[in-house]
């Protein structure tokens, strides 16, 4: 077992290329738990802590470019809390303050758990994921990046370097159901983004399917049946039907955390409430 501690992105990419089975380590909040529970037997590890390129933040016009190794804390109430209200709300629900200080948004993408707290936000924002390797950089839509339960499109020699998404003028919000009032793994979550300029609402669900579920049919139905160019309140009939449709798009399972039936019910309630928050 080797531990690499590259000092630059090119160096990190070189190492990743030469050690395709190596684990990328940023905050370590997933990897260390996996090691302790023996779900992962460490081989080689590439620590990204000193790769400064991954910590950078840029704004170009209306587009944000967020370095993958920025910790949740910065989105919750730190330097980048202003860029996305939903991301800030989602970041607050991740673990404890200690976890939020260490864990990173790129780590959330790398692990790609269906319960990953920031992933519904990135899905609803149609984020673009930058993946770099020694061969260059490619950009994938979040929807093409997330493939299944803890599976994503990152190749073994690639490093998630940044996340890009556009500034949106309308409401955006996140809600998460857990059995405890803080520091809890999601049993159902949802992010809703209202984009009045483009007259659309995006809604993405967490922990109710093998990966994040973007409710395209519900979104389409809503824009067909509602004027989404403003945030004027909409009728209960519309929000109820939206909830029903979102619920129908969920594909949850029953496990020790909750039941499929409850999860399906909960995402409907969250969809309805988030839509009302957007339209008021």
């Amino acid at each position, binding site marked *: 077992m080797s531990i690499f501690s590259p000092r630059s992105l090119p160096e990190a990419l070189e190492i990743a290329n030469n050690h395709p089975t190596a684990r990328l380590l940023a905050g370590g909040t997933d990897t260390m*738990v996996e090691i*302790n*529970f*023996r779900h992962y037997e460490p081989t080689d590890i590439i620590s990204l802590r000193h790769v400064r390129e991954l910590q950078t933040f840029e704004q170009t016009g209306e587009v944000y470019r967020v370095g993958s190794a920025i910790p949740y804390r910065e989105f919750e109430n730190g330097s980048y809390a202003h860029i996305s209200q939903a991301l800030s*709300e989602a970041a*607050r*629900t991740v673990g404890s303050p200690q976890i939020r200080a260490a864990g990173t948004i790129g780590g959330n993408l790398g692990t790609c758990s269906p319960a990953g707290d920031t992933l519904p936000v990135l899905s609803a924002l149609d984020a673009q994921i930058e993946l770099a390797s020694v061969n260059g950089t490619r950009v994938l839509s979040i929807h093409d990046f997330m493939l299944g339960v803890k599976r994503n499109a990152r190749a073994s020699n690639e490093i998630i370097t940044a996340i890009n998404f556009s500034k949106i003028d309308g409401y955006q*919000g*996140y*809600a*998460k*159901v*857990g*059995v*405890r*009032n*803080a*520091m*809890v*793994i*999601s049993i159902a*979550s949802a992010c809703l983004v209202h984009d009045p300029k483009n007259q659309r609402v995006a809604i993405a669900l967490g922990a109710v399917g093998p990966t994040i579920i973007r409710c395209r049919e519900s979104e389409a139905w809503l824009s067909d049946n509602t004027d989404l160019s403003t945030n004027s309140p909409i009728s209960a009939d519309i929000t109820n039907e939206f909830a029903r449709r979102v619920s129908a798009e969920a594909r949850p399972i029953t*496990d*020790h*955390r*909750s*039941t499929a*039936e*409850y999860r399906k*019910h*909960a995402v409907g*309630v*969250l969809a309805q*409430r988030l839509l009302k*928050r957007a339209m008021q």
Partner: protein
Amino acid sequence: MTTRTTNKQRDVLGVSALRPDGIAKTQGTFSFSSDYTADNMLWGATLRSPHPYARIISIDISAAIKIDGVETILVSGDVPGKLTYGLIASDQPVFASDYVRYMGEPIAAVAADHPETCRRALDAIVVHYEVMAPLTSIEDALNPNTPSIHPDGNVFRHQRILHGDANATGDIIVEGEYEIGMQDQAFLGLEAALAYPDSDGAGVELVVATQWLHEDQNQIADCLAMPKEKVRLQLGGVGGAFGAREDISLQVHTCLLALRTGRPVKMQYTREESFFGHVHRHPGVIALKHHVTNEGRIVKIEGTMKLDGGAYASTSSAVLINGVTHIQGPYKCANAVFDGYAVRTNNPPCGAMRGFGVVQACFAHEGQMDKIAKAVGKSPVEVRLLNAMEKGDTLITGQAVESVAPVARCIRETDALPMPEPLSHGSEIMEFPGGSGRTSELHNIKRGIGWGVSIKNLMYSEGFDDSAEARCTLADGVATIKFATAEVGQGFVVLAQQIARTVLGVDVVVLDRIDTEIGSAGSTSASRQTWMSGGAVDGACRLVRERLFEHVAHTHGLDPLQLVIEDTDIVDTMGPLRVSVSEASKGVKIVQTFLHQHRKTEELDENGQGNCHVAFAFVAHRAVVDVDVELGLVKVVQIATAQDVGRSLNPLALLGQIEGGIAQGLGLAVMEEIIVQNGIVKNPSFTDYLLPTALDAPDVLFIPIEEPDPQAPLGAKGVGEPPCISVTPAIVAAIRDATGVDLKRTPVRPQDICL
């Protein structure tokens, strides 16, 4: 003659004295049991069964023992003495050899140079199992046609209670069924021990986090086939217990490994392993039928309590007796027909946990009280006051309650505490149900109020020969106190100092090492140490004071009976003498040992009749909750409570017990449960076994009810268990009140409310 030089408030009884280990624990410098190391130390680890029920065909350690750094591997055949242990029945194997009966049962132990080497060795041990279908339901265990999963059978105990007129009837019958999930003690300081073998191999010293040094000593000595005095125990720093450290876990294994290797061996469990390494609170089902008058007075109770004790006996039989003998609650009841069963299954073993059977009983009887209130058109408070037990009333065991019994006062004083402000648009979303998940808004939330009142026995029952010993040494104005009382976080260390300061008029009280070099203090459980070890320390200090008075009286030609302690001075009540205790004890060494015993109790007869308990404490809880009815999420807003404490010896420590107990009871009400499916534990981690966080903790309003109990040596009743007993049914009642849903089960899950 001396004059008093200080006006400083002394840390005597009744004062919020700070505990001697407080700063170290706050700053992180306190040594918990897992922090100890020794030169030349080996690490120990345990191989556990992945199956809830299987026959062991073979255990092959040949590959594991060859691993570099592995010193020894022990299996059942290596146990020199008794092959089993247990607190009441010795039915649990040190190592499973023929069958494994629960997931996580120990099969072998390894000692090696590093924890990682231990892990590799455990992986390399090959066990062949014939996996069998586990027995996992109480009903199956009670079915006589089900094959026994243990030579001792599938029923640990059946106890019937037949009291008064079995044919008595009331005007109204109120029936209910209640179910309690499996709670874990979830202490933060994991199981850990360090064993030092004697150089001649004929004895061992064990430093361990436990609740009861001497009971561990007895059980370890039997398994090691050593005389008891060759097994010396010392208390390691304990990070919480709540009942989970009463049973043997790693004690025998650690000693065996140390004796076999001739080197110090340290064992410590991981968090996951801890869920398999100790007993849990019994899950169970209770059916209750109350006959009441039209007015709401209880005429008779009938029903059954069935507890799942898991694979081994532990304290199941005693937990059951506590449950059935408290099923009437703190209410008058003249007639009863009740049956209790504790059964063996292939689920995780269950035993002691804070509340010990009474938590289960209380959840059921308090559910019934609300149903009775509804049936007769009274409020929850009115129906409880109407039936409230008073001193002199009898339990359904026929035992008279001779303790102070301020049940009605607990209820009234709780009722008089202010209610919380209603939620408003200005309220923080984090204060709403759902908390940081931002799920709920004001109009989604309904508020509910619920009540719970309980009676809890203090100390051990059913004729158990219970005692506690303490020794006090006074020399040069310094008192040194020695006891074997396990300090598990409850604060006996500060209480002992307060007692000595009060009785002897000293300021400096040194606490000697807590170990088996003195007689047993009994277990730190059953709300008993303030009464038992407190009585022992008080007794030893009083004996020392008598000798000191004799010494001073002799010196000054006085009658010792004239002398009293006033602050830090010895004062002659009949004359001018005033001498400080430190001066009077200069050059003197007085040593006294005291054994405190409580009055004898009796076993129950076949009809469950007998004076089986020592004393009782009472408490009332009123819960206010906010519920997001549509999502089934709960925020406990406030708990108001008045508790019968006898006498408050340390108000700060008392409040700590009240708030901690309430948090633990809240956990059982809305989130804490070990999920077991077909004998498999699904959530052995703090990721999925949820404990309340600061955001889940309610505001607590607390009134101590101080009516000193003349039976108690310090007038004080134990306060550890009552806070967590009736708070659970109070919270669940408040959720029922908010939602209108007839919740039968605790913990309440979101889907129980909204689907």
